[in-house]
């Protein structure tokens, strides 16, 4: 949206304070601009006004029947608003008294106590006592509405935020209102659990203690919690979280609204999937295999052994007998230093991690490295959202909410998938594929556009290439059948004609047989239909993990140095390292390749695994090094739309474990190279000096909400 010009603002006064806000702003929001609290329960800035709780009363001059509700009234020029007249104060007292007549006042054992809007507004706006001296309404309390959420109907003030979240935002109607009048209650459809993956948001937006999280019940009082701004580590979206910690244990994660990324929501995986941080299974000491058994060892001993064994192997087989597999969940700094250790200290070109298949470092048509070309927020501006072999609900849940928001704004959703997906019921069309059909889909979409001369950016080389592939394409069409082919032709036409199409595919779908060209063909489709480099249009992979894109940026690739600079000698790929008999030593950081192969190569004489738990791979290791989680260190991560965001240390590191980068510094030292990084911030500075996608960034600049960076000239210091 263009920036509001000053003369386009609406001017009004609230309690004699002049305020200027954009047209359409609600009086409630305008009052907040003026620093005046108008209490609300039912209203939530991410949902349309409801006007149900009758708490946000104000008096507006020249409007009929005072008082009015501030959350339903848009501002108008010259409006004069009063928020503290006797009429207003009495009405608010009245509403609070009504809300409290049936409220159990069980604050001492309520999880919400201390951060409860009912407590706070009663203190600031309510009556000192009640005139209600009769029996309160009682319910069985609390009842589970799912394994994760408990409902206490006595505490509920029926503001309907949770049920509206279910209908308006997650659109799964997980929670609904049942019955009417004084018998009205929140509940689920008969015989259905509240099994939404977004259920935790209802707990967070509940203004009282009616919805509580099983994971947090009776764990802490809010005032005991230390709040640390961080970023969720569970998928590539990178939702902003506030990690709430009590005595070095994570108690819960809350949303730290970032409209560019998460729009204020978290999925349940992100909110509650932190058990591994607090897990008693965490590794607390390095281990070295002796007589077939992993036994505890001192760090110094582990470093010494690693340095010795690596130099022995280098001497005997050469450095290229050593390989490194990195992580998609550790920080940019960890990833950067890992490849630096391998390439510069050990001297091997074999660096990779588990990722999708993309031809070359950059797309040949656009020269862009492989990543989503549009931002997350731009999804809202698309007219068409095409999901090919992608299931955001399962893999990038908060993107699913953004797609639904776009749909409410008029975007059409197309789902092309082998399986059923949650978005199917919202799709204008679901195209069901046979197994491994995604590659064929991309090829047919692209060739349809090219053949039917619907290219906005004609490309003769592409045309020629597709001509050569004619037989292949006909084979694809036969495989998919005439019905699916016809649907795809229609879809190709829609994409070509779209005001803005965003075409997304799952990173890992590119690994399926027949999907070698998936990424390239879809990128080409976007280019020739003009759906790239403009608002509301784009294409790209949906990455798997929190730092999948960062790992690529940092050069955890066999053919790329940091910043997608081509490596002089391309190293072995992930799959090659896991099958090559030339490899004698493998260093695995934060990854579990044993999941992907039946057996690690017999030729391996040294397996070093650095992780937080004893994974399948670690169990086979010769040396195991205990690392810390995202919650125990500072660093940066790069999400799916290239927001570089800071994660901050929330807990003291688990005793005995170290941050990955600290471990690398020590190993380098033991191998005779001295690195002078005092903190991860200094590593970030080095990254920023060399990597065109991070040029000029520093730790402070990442701030609370991160920075979405693009490729630019490196500003060399």
């Amino acid at each position: 949206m263009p920036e509001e010009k000053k003369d386009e603002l609406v001017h009004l006064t609230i309690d004699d304070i002049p305020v200027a806000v954009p047209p359409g702003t609600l009086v409630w929001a305008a009052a907040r601009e003026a620093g005046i609290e108008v209490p609300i329960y039912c209203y939530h800035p991410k949902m349309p006004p409801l006007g149900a709780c009758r708490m946000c009363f104000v008096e507006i001059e020249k409007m009929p029947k005072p008082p009015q509700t501030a959350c339903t009234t848009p501002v108008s020029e010259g409006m004069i608003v009063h928020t503290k007249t006797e009429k207003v104060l009495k009405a608010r007292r009245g509403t609070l008294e009504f809300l409290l007549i049936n409220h159990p006042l069980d604050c001492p054992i309520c999880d919400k106590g201390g951060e409860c809007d009912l407590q706070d507004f009663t203190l600031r706006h309510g009556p000192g006592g009640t005139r209600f001296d009769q029996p309160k309404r009682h319910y069985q309390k609390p009842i589970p509405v799912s394994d994760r959420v408990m409902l206490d109907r006595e505490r509920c003030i029926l503001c309907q935020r949770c049920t509206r979240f279910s209908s308006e935002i997650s659109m799964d109607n997980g929670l609904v209102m049942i019955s009417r009048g004084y018998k009205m209650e929140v509940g689920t459809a008969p015989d259905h659990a509240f099994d939404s993956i977004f259920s935790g948001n209802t707990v967070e937006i509940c203004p009282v203690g009616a919805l509580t999280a099983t994971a947090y019940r009776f764990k802490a009082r809010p005032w005991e919690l230390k709040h640390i701004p961080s970023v969720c580590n569970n998928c590539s979206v990178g939702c902003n979280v506030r990690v709430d910690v009590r005595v070095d244990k994570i108690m819960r994660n809350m949303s730290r609204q970032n409209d560019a990324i998460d729009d204020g929501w978290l999925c349940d995986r992100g909110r509650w999937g932190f058990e591994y941080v607090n897990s008693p299974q965490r590794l607390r000491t390095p281990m070295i295999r002796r007589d077939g058994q992993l036994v505890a060892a001192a760090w110094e001993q582990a470093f010494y052994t690693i340095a010795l064994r690596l130099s022995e192997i280098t001497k005997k087989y050469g450095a290229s007998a050593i390989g490194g597999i990195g992580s998609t969940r550790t920080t940019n700094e960890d990833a950067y230093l890992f490849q630096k250790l391998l390439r510069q200290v050990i001297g091997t070109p074999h660096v990779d991690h588990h990722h999708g298949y993309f031809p070359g470092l950059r797309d040949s048509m656009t020269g862009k490295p492989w990543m989503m070309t549009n931002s997350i927020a731009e999804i809202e501006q698309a007219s068409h959202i095409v999901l090919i072999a992608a299931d955001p609900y399962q893999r990038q849940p908060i993107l699913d909410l953004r797609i639904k928001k776009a749909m409410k704004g008029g975007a059409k959703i197309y789902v092309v998938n082998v399986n059923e997906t949650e978005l199917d019921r919202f799709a204008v069309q679901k195209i069901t594929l046979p197994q491994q059909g995604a590659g064929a889909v991309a090829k047919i979409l692209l060739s349809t556009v090219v053949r039917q001369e619907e290219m906005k950016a004609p490309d003769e080389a592409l045309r020629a290439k597709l001509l050569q592939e004619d037989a292949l394409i006909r084979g694809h069409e036969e495989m998919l059948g005439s019905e699916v082919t016809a649907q795809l032709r229609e879809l190709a036409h829609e994409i070509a004609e779209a005001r803005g199409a965003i075409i997304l595919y799952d990173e890992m779908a590119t690994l399926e047989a027949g999907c070698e060209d998936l990424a390239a063909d879809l990128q080409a489709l976007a280019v020739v239909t003009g759906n790239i480099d403009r608002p509301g249009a784009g294409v790209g992979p949906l990455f798997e993990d929190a730092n999948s894109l960062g790992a690529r940026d940092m050069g955890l690739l066999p053919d790329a140095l940091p910043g997608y600079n081509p490596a002089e000698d391309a190293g072995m790929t992930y799959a090659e390292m896991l099958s090559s008999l030339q490899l004698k030593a493998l260093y695995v950081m934060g990854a579990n390749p044993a999941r992907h192969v039946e057996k690690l190569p017999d030729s391996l004489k040294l397996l070093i695994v650095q992780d937080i738990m004893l994974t399948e791979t670690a169990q086979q290791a010769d040396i195991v090094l205990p690392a810390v989680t995202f919650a125990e260190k500072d660093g940066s991560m790069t999400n799916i739309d290239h927001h570089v965001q800071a994660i901050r240390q929330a807990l003291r590191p688990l005793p005995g474990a170290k941050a990955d980068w600290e471990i690398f510094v020590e190993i380098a030292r033991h191998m005779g190279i001295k690195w002078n990084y005092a903190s991860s911030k200094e590593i970030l500075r080095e990254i920023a000096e060399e990597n065109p996608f991070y040029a000029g960034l520093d730790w402070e600049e990442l701030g609370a909400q991160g920075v979405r960076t693009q490729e630019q000239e490196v500003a060399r210091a």
Partner: protein
Amino acid sequence: MPELIITKNIDAPGLDTLKGYRKRGGYKSLAKALKEYQPDDILEMVKKSGLRGRGGAGFPTGMKWGFLAKNQPRYLCCNCDESEPGTFKDRMLMEKNPHQLIEGVILTSYACRVSVAFIYVRGELALAGRQIERAIEEAYGAGLIGKNILGSGYDLEVIMHRGAGAYICGEESALMESLEGRRGYPRLKPPFPAAVGLYGGPTVINNCETLSTIPAIVKNGADWYASFGTEKSKGTRVFCLSGHVKKPGNYELPLGTPLRTLIYDEEYGGGILDDKQLKAIIPGGSSTFMLGADKVDTPLDFEAIAAAGSMLGSGGVVVIHEDTCIVGAALRMTEFYRDESCGKCTPCREGTYWLTEIYERLEHGRGKESDIDLLMDICDNISGKSFCPLGDAATSPITSSIKLFREEYEYHVRHGRCMVGDQHAQQETLLAGAQSVHAGAPAKEM
């Protein structure tokens, strides 16, 4: 006896069939309108007739049609969810003369350039629903609804929908929510239905009686219709007379007829049951303020009833005689509003619950002296603070009955029983009367 417009021939056998309705001139207005009038002619005619909405608010019908936004598709919705306690006129009109309503719906749809009309019938009115359903079927069969009505080129679909049993769905925006398949919750206004109504389209929504009047206006002209009634309240209305009268029922009278005529005239109510004294009148359904017996000469028109301190509302005139305990009567009505509150907003949901709790204890002899003022203050915290008018409506019987009969409430507190019929009451009344005068409340007429 004055001329009947809407209830003319209402008891004639066979009127509810297409044949019977046509025999008595039915659908002639429609034929005439489609042939001779442009849609705007009918709109002007209705404006000129002075017809005001018969649902409760009394808003000028033609003006409402005129507000309709110009975009298509637009809808007509006929509100037949008649649920206001004391009101039973729409039910009779639907049961006995469904085609009159259908004709009104078609005429209005034509005037408002609507091509889909809905008739929302209260679910409990099973017979009325069946009659409307059958009448629609007959009308489709006769080419009165559907494509190219009577060869005019005008197309209209009419769809009947049964409510599922909620008073709130008589409120126009809750009705539309319900019609669209959601919870019967009132909608935020603005936007008003004329701009954004059913399925997002501009919608004109009128009461059953209002639309049943349209054929007569089209047939006889605006001036003819305006010759009935008073200066500002034109035409006739069907008054639903109930309570303690000898002959309760639906009576069509020109607006401006005094309440006394409706209640006492032999043609209509025929006087108070058992020739008792009149105590109070609810003039327009339970949502309107009670009037004292001294207001019995008030003319039944919008302005006069408003001047007397109430509203003409839905035309449900409830007569209360001297043997009625006003606390018990108000309890009954308050319970109704508690049960029918949709629950969306706090004051109505919690307030009606609390009010009922207080009434229960007053009624059962456990009331407190402070309860009466508490009732008044709770009403003040509901009235004007609730989301829709149901909250306001719930307070009407309470505040008006306390204002008129405070001493009965006080008697309930002090003696734990009704003043009415209590042998000690007479003496007590004298005492209470003295106190009431002191408190500035009107003394009871004995």
